């Protein structure tokens, strides 16, 4: 299961660093952290480092962004989960807009809509790969 998720993350990193100006790695990482859980924070760290290296950015720059985003998700976990789709949409829109300004220096409405669509697509894939009981259910614990 983890192997497949890592392959998707690597594919995202390669695409973003080679042919597209779109925050696909950010979307993958945010979906992982939201759906699979805290273990994926390590992937956010290593994925960010790899993206920095491949895209000739300062090493650690993207990792810091991804980890800060993971911290926000864990801090506001009761609000940020897939059961509350409005908060998730707002969160992903804000975070992809901020990322776009920071790393691509532009954001268009189409990019934000694309981020949401790809986020939904990746979530669908993650749900197919990860068995239901392995998905992060901590938010529904009482």
């Amino acid at each position, binding site marked *: 299961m983890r192997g497949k998720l890592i392959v998707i993350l690597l594919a995202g990193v390669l695409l973003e660093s*080679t042919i597209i*100006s779109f925050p696909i790695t950010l979307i993958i990482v945010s979906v992982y952290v939201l759906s699979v859980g805290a273990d994926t924070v390590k992937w956010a760290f290593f994925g960010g*480092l790899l993206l920095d290296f491949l895209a*000739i950015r300062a*090493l650690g720059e993207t990792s*810091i962004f991804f980890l800060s985003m993971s911290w926000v998700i864990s801090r506001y976990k009761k609000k940020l989960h897939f059961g509350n789709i409005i908060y998730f949409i707002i969160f992903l829109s804000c975070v992809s807009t901020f990322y776009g300004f920071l*790393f691509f220096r532009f954001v268009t409405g189409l990019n934000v809509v694309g981020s949401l669509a790809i986020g939904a697509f990746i979530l669908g894939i993650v749900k197919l790969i990860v068995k239901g009981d392995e998905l992060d259910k901590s938010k529904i614990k009482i």
Partner: protein
Amino acid sequence: MGKKNLIYSLLVAAVVIFIADYFSLLGFIKNPLDAIVIPLKRTIYSASILVKNFGDVIGKYPQLADLISKEQNLNQNNEELTFRLKILEEENTKLRQQLGVSTPRAYKLIASPVISVTRFMEIGAGESEGIKAGMIVVDGSTLVGKVVQTSLRRSKIMLPTDSEINIAAKSNRGTRGLVTGQFGTNIIFDKVLQKDLLLLGDVVVTTGESEFPPNLVIGTVVSINSPDVSPYKSAKIEAPIDYKTASTVFVISS
């Protein structure tokens, strides 16, 4: 380790790595890895160009006969113009010699393969080939961009479509302005005085001010925006080359 502690530890590690890289202490790890990264990125980039070109071929298939006849005409024109150019160059050289004027300065170029194009263009040549930040990149007489960052074997180029680039430019009618990028896809010829003449089809070139050499082609004016309330007008420019499908570019080293 708790979830929060794990995030904090990794954040500290990322900050330490960031600082170490800022002071160029991680070159011993990054430089050997370039040897793997360059062919990998080049393969992915070439595959993406193939896919884009395949889409173009399918889209233009109905006009194939037309395109073939156009190509034949262009080839014929090209041969005639090349012949005329050769005669004019010889004539020009002789006249310069007679008048005692030195020949125009030729640039020393470093050919570099393109390995990726996202916000920046990345080339598979870096400090080991003598490339430094600030050098200008061309394709023929067309401006491709400016080197903004280098590693041992790779360099990052800021394209004219980037919103952070500012190039002093003029049109073939002498109208001056400033070229900058918009949304990572468009090139804008901005800060053109309303009184200055600017028409569709005008060619925009570098003026030679700041770090860009003179007379490098940036593009052709395809639309003009002239608001009544502003002292300036702007124009959208179309570059003669597609940056997203370039395969080799040349860095001006001197």
